[in-house]
């Protein structure tokens, strides 16, 4: 399936875009998504392990399974405040 992943802050700068479309298998897990993103955007590889993944605006664990309808985002370490 094709999913769109939102990118923020340095992830966005490194990718040169505020989202990226990647093709992943059905029943793709968050950990699989990380690998697919690293393949598609090698510039992100260093930062990806530090990022959280949000599914529908909630932090997701690495074994969570993506759904085609999920809003997906990479969350680099936050620095608000």
């Amino acid at each position, binding site marked *: 399936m094709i999913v769109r992943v939102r990118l923020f*802050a340095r992830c966005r700068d490194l990718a040169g875009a505020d989202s990226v479309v990647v093709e992943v298998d059905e029943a793709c897990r968050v950990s699989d998504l990380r690998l697919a993103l690293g393949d598609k955007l090698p510039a992100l590889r260093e930062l990806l392990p*530090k990022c959280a993944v949000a599914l529908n605006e909630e932090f997701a664990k690495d074994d969570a399974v993506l759904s085609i309808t999920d809003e997906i*985002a990479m969350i*680099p*370490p*936050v*620095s*608000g*405040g």
Partner: protein
Amino acid sequence: MIQLTREPIDYHELTEKVIRPSCGAVVTFLGTVRDLTGDEVTVALDYEAYGSMAEKKMAEIEADTRARWPDGEIAMVHRLGHLNVGEVSVAVAVSCPHRAQAFDACRHAIDRLKELVPIWKKENWADGKTEWVHPGSVATPG
């Protein structure tokens, strides 16, 4: 009450909002833009958010803080966009019956905000370079 805004934060209005006849203590925390980070000179910060998730997380922190300190009010606002040194980036106002509670509740709310809310700041250094702040990741001046 929680809010993201691109306008200067009216923390006086925010504080007035939480004053309650049943509460004898109000604690307001302000985060302001510092001129130094370590040895490097900051001239400004740019704040960016994953807006919808940031509002959701702030609402959860508000609810969690209310659950722990049920008597009183809480209001928090985070600013986005370009901020100069000395400007207020975040304000958290909490009222409680007594002062120990108000200090603890305000501290709890800002600690959680800094830990959980998807907001990022980009340093604007004196030499013109910029750099996203991602704690725990290797810094790569951009």
